């Protein structure tokens, strides 16, 4: 089995899975019918992407692995998503802030992944980038609306950005598997995306009349399977059916 490629794919796909699960859990709880549907749509886009990645990963893993076993039957330490996507929906501003800080990265990432020498990954990136382009538009738009909105919305948006900021640097970390894949021109060298990322994020925060956080201290660990306390709760919700009724199908 191509261990590095397998891990590399999980590193990409787990971000979308956990973020998709978070947004999906909000269904019916959005601040308005319209934003509720928008969040659910984004969730479904992400799950669609996840399925393509996991189907590919299952093929590489063999041993009877399926997209479902990869999604539902791993333990917490085996998930390789960044810490950012597992942060909770404290309020709508946090949901939007998390989405925005991830979307900007996701778009830059997929843009480069299209050039991957791995044809499957390149094809998934080409298919996904239009969806993610819209996600970024949606979340950026809301950052601006809330930031440049009322006193209350500005305060909440600022709190969300300031709190989540500490999870942004990890997006540009590389694991050993990532580095090996970059060597083979399969992976995106995420370190090269960092400047453009902060440039884009800062421009939108400025337009939203928000302060750009100055903190230079960043959290990390997700890419190595060391997570914040929130992931366990997300997984227990998400995995419940498969754990309680193994191999059940709808």
């Amino acid at each position, binding site marked *: 089995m191509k261990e590095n490629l397998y891990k590399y794919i999980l590193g990409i796909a787990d971000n979308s899975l956990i973020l998709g699960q978070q947004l999906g859990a909000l269904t019916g709880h959005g601040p*308005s*019918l*319209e934003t509720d*549907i928008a969040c659910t749509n984004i969730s479904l886009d992400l799950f669609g992407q996840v399925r393509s990645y996991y189907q590919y990963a299952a093929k590489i893993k063999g041993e009877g692995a399926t997209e479902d076993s990869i999604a539902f039957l791993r333990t917490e330490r085996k998930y390789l998503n960044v810490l950012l996507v597992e942060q909770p929906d404290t309020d709508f501003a946090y949901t939007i802030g998390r989405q925005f800080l991830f979307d900007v990265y996701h778009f830059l990432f997929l843009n480069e992944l299209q050039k991957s020498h791995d044809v499957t990954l390149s094809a998934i990136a080409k298919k996904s980038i239009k969806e993610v382009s819209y996600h970024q*538009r949606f979340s950026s*738009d809301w950052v601006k609306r809330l930031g440049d909105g009322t006193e209350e919305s500005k305060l909440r948006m600022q709190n969300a950005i300031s709190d989540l900021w500490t999870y942004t640097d990890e997006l540009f970390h590389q694991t050993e598997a990532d580095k090996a894949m970059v060597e083979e021109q399969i992976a995106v060298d995420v370190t090269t995306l960092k400047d453009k990322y902060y440039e884009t994020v800062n421009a939108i925060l400025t337009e939203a009349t928000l302060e750009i956080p100055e903190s230079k201290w960043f959290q990390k660990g997700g890419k190595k399977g060391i997570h914040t306390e929130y992931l366990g709760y997300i997984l227990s919700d998400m995995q419940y059916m498969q754990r309680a009724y193994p191999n059940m199908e709808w």
Partner: protein
Amino acid sequence: MKKNWPLWEVFVRSKNGLEHRHFGSLHAADEQMALENARDVYTRRSEGVSIWVVESKHITASNPENNGELFEPAHDKVYRHPTFYDLPDEVKHM
């Protein structure tokens, strides 16, 4: 929050359609948000290729109480329907 947002009417032109049709309404703070909300609410099953939104207050509607004088006089004038001659095949979209 939502109760402060104005109501918008959404018109979508579907893939095979030639004109925009009324699809429904939604709430949004401004025209940009109305367009994006319309995209999410009404075109998620790939129904459309073009969207128009207009704030509902800009629509002037006829009064149902006047339906008698407005519409009933047309009921007995069947000759106004183009059903008394054959349409050539070359004429499309009638």
